[in-house]
């Protein structure tokens, strides 16, 4: 008997109970206590219509259709820690869907599921799916969703929930049910819905995908009612999946673009600042073309890989802001922080970094969508011209406008400026090499040595850095391909690194790239189980640990408080260190199925250990090298 049949019978029984005179028939002693007698077959019993058989199986369910929809959307993977509230669609993915596109990825924590999706999307340019309980799973996932929100990355979250209280199993299913599942993350997701029918699901599933993929991108949530997943679906039922068209990203207004071009061409010291600008592989080429056309210096803040690190116009390591007379900010989240400096002492203070009269132009889709509660939007920045548009989509028309505007005289100025900038960037690289040479043989290993040793092992591979920089990678390595770096967590929520690296490595796997993760120790301890996920699903990832045996950022904050109060300066490490005992990350990783070596304290041992790990990764497996490092 299916649910509708059950409900029909239940209501009939109820009606009968009301209609029937309330006369209780006394039960016979036999009926009260005796075992049921073996039925005596008779001609009447054999020829009578048998009672309705309870139907306990079905060939097709609502969640099968949901999988059809997810396939139509193009989700390649679903990351999930299993949960009974989405058991219906879990089974449909692996059986009805054949566990292919989407393929289920087994995760040990919902934060890992979402952070994997975060890293994956920044490489692949589209989201993967996440299944989670609407209650206990979402609470685990919330931090990672917040990071993705801050980082403007699409993650497609689907929550299981049992809305109908009369159908919940006693016990845990009540604790796992909620009236409004998405409410908890509504402040930091772009859209959510709780579909009440399968056609409703199809429309909302596509709407959610469109919204997630339209700049500014962000996570979305769909609540999958358990009844909707598990309801039998007749084989004759035909359900339609609407057409999916992803909106073209919003370009800047043509008159405003022309004005930006005019100002850029006229400026004597223009600086382009890019943060979460690069969404697609084409973005870097557009920015290079713009910068080279006007010979402007470019600062890449690191939200994405926007510009080649060794390009002669890359002034990221120089004090270019102070000299600028025009700043063009592309998808810069904290523009105020770019043009001001902040001093964190007993009395907090700030001052402008720019000289008077410097013009500031902003192109960002961040101006198109903002929420109030969480304050990741940063301090209000004064600008002279603001384009509420996607910067990457706007760049081609800006390049064209600049080329139309530049005169021969201005082009000669550009050439002269470019030559000076090239000299400055070359000198900056030499300074970086010199600085890296200090404490070269120190133990613990310097972070510069760590990065140099790692660079020596990967530079001839098709590599991509999927997490961490140890401060030195952008200064010492040559990043010149758009996929070689994906930025950080966005929300500075620790615990992003390891799972985002695994998710990004999953995306790189199909391209045959060597995914490299500079893994900090405190971050790994949030949910190290994601290493098992990498081993289980044969996700090749090289993790080299920047292990400073502390939550070091916080350690420095507490030290500041100790100093400010002139007390306990030697006690600032309490509560922030990861010592006594030291964590043996190699053993942790080995226990989770990885090739792992360490802890390494002698810098001479770092290179050979990484070489062995690279060999393992090139065979298609994850590997980890634990290096005990200087703090920063």
């Amino acid at each position, binding site marked *: 008997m299916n649910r509708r049949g059950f409900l029909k019978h239940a209501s009939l029984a109820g009606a009968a109970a009301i209609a029937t005179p309330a006369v209780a028939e006394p039960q016979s002693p036999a009926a009260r206590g005796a075992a049921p007698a073996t039925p005596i077959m008779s001609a009447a019993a054999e020829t009578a219509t048998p009672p309705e058989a309870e139907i306990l199986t079905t060939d097709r369910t609502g969640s099968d259709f949901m999988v059809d929809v997810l396939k139509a959307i193009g989700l390649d993977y679903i990351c999930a820690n299993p949960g009974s509230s989405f058991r219906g669609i879990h089974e449909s993915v692996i059986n009805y869907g054949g566990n292919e596109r989407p393929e289920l990825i087994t995760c040990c924590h919902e934060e890992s599921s979402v952070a994997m999706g975060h890293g994956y999307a920044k490489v692949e340019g589209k989201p993967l799916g996440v299944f989670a309980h609407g209650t206990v799973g979402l609470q685990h996932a919330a931090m990672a969703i917040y990071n993705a929100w801050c980082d403007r990355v699409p993650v497609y979250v689907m929550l299981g929930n049992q809305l109908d209280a009369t159908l919940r199993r006693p016990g845990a299913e009540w604790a796992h049910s909620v009236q409004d599942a998405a409410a908890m993350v509504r402040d930091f997701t772009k859209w959510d819905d709780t579909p009440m029918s399968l056609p409703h699901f199809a429309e909302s599933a596509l709407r959610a995908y469109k919204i997630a993929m339209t700049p500014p991108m962000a996570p979305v949530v769909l609540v999958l009612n358990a009844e909707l997943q598990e309801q039998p679906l007749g084989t004759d039922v035909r359900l339609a999946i609407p057409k999916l068209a992803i909106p073209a990203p919003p370009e800047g207004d043509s008159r405003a673009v022309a004005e930006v071009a005019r100002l850029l061409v006229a400026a004597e010291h223009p600086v382009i600042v890019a943060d979460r600008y690069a969404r697609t592989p084409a973005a870097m080429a557009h920015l290079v073309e713009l910068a080279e056309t006007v010979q402007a210096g470019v*600062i890449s803040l690191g939200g994405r890989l926007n510009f080649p690190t060794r390009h002669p116009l890359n002034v*990221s390591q120089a004090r270019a802001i102070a000299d600028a007379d025009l700043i063009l900010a592309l998808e810069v989240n904290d523009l105020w922080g770019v043009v001001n400096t902040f001093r964190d002492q007993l009395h907090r203070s700030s001052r402008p970094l720019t000289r008077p009269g410097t013009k500031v132009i902003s192109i960002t889709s961040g101006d198109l969508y903002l929420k109030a509660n969480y304050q990741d939007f940063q301090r209000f920045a004064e600008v002279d011209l603001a384009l509420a548009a996607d910067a990457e989509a706007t760049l081609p028309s800006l390049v064209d406008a600049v080329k139309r505007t530049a005169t021969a005289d201005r082009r000669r100025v550009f050439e002269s400026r470019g030559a000076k900038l090239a000299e400055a960037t070359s000198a900056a690289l030499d300074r970086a*090499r010199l600085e890296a040479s200090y404490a070269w043989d*120190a133990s613990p290993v*310097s972070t*510069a040595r760590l990065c140099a040793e790692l660079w020596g092992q990967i530079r001839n591979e098709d590599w991509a850095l999927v997490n961490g920089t140890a*401060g030195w990678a952008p200064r010492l390595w040559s990043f010149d391909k758009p996929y070689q770096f994906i930025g950080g967590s966005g929300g500075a929520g620790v615990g992003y690194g390891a799972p985002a690296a695994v998710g990004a490595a999953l995306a790189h796997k199909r391209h045959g790239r060597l995914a490299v993760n500079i893994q900090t120790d405190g971050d790994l301890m949030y949910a190290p189980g994601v290493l098992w996920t990498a081993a289980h699903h044969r996700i090749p990832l090289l993790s080299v640990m920047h292990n400073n045996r502390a939550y070091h950022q916080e350690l*420095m904050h507490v030290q500041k408080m100790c100093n400010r109060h002139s007390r306990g300066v030697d006690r600032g490490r309490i509560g922030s260190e990861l010592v006594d005992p030291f964590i043996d990350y190699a053993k942790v990783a080995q226990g989770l199925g990885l090739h792992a070596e360490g802890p390494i304290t002698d810098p001479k041992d770092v290179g050979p250990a990484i070489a062995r790990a690279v060999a393992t990764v090139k065979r298609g497996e994850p590997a980890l090298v634990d290096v005990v490092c200087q*703090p*920063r």
Partner: protein
Amino acid sequence: MTSMRAALVAAAAMTLTVAVHTQSPSPAQPAAAAPPGDAERGKALFVKNGCYQCHNYEGHGGAAGARIAPNPLPFRAFVAYVRAPRGDMPPYTATVMAEQDLADVYAYLRSRPRPADVSRIPLLAR
């Protein structure tokens, strides 16, 4: 994790510091004016009082703090900066680090080895 943004800020800070370091000591504050210090004790103080947290154990600097070894500021400027930093560095009052403590730390910083010629480090080749 240290982001590229942090690296950028640190680079700017280091640039400032390098500029200061390369100044010639003024006649009134020659490096030789540093009082005698115990480098071994200074090393212990450098760790105990948390200096290593931003400047690393060798004083070679990093993403969070400037390089201060092996050629720190002239001693009086060094003390003045530690007592009243102009940037984000936490101040160290005489209550928590006496002048002799700073002299010992100073001796430790000056005892740090100078790096090898970069051209002799193949991993740092361009």
